[in-house]
């Protein structure tokens, strides 16, 4: 079974703090993704990576950065957390290729106070 794990289920941080969200997958997937999910807005892609050290901006990259030093690990960084970044963050991974079913982690609910 594919397993995608995220470092925390719930996280509470203060405005201005640097926040790291980590995601690990165990299926040797080339692609990894970070989404945020907000009520009424569905899933919005923040960043994705198609290979180690490679990254591409998604639809809402502002205020975020990412790091992929190893194939199995993809980190999302909030350089200076703000209250409007309070959200559910979902990590996903998939094989590179034509039919790219994505496998999701359980999500991290981040609250920024």
């Amino acid at each position, binding site marked *: 079974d594919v397993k995608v794990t995220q470092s925390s289920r719930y996280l509470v941080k203060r405005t201005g703090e640097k926040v790291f969200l980590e995601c690990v997958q165990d299926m040797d997937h080339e692609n990894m993704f970070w989404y945020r999910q907000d009520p009424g807005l569905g899933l919005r892609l923040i960043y994705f990576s*198609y290979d180690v050290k490679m990254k591409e901006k998604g639809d809402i990259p502002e205020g975020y950065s990412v790091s992929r030093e190893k194939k199995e690990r993809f980190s999302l960084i909030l350089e200076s957390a703000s209250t409007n970044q309070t959200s559910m963050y979902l990590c996903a991974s998939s094989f590179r290729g034509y039919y790219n079913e994505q496998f999701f982690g359980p999500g991290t609910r981040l609250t920024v106070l």
Partner: protein
Amino acid sequence: SQQGEEDPQALSIQEGENATMNCSYKTSINNLQWYRQNSGRGLVHLILIRSNEREKHSGRLRVTLDTSKKSSSLLITASRAADTASYFCATDAWYSSASKIIFGSGTRLSIRP
């Protein structure tokens, strides 16, 4: 940028009834996927239908695709309480160096006992 839009946004039915959700999209696709999300959890892949397929079945799920109308439907037959969840359609798109999928905003399905 949302490619798929689900309809209705919310649906409440009696256990045992069939549930139908629809998805419309804007541009040509290679495939369309349906995902389920239980409350506060990550998404789980349900079924993928390719652009050259018109109908696909998986257990109690039936998906249809009409590329001329740019629409898809998900039918869940003989609904159960455990089917209570949000359902998302996702369409593929090429984005710079890798393919990715774009999610709609989802249909919230509630099954009444």
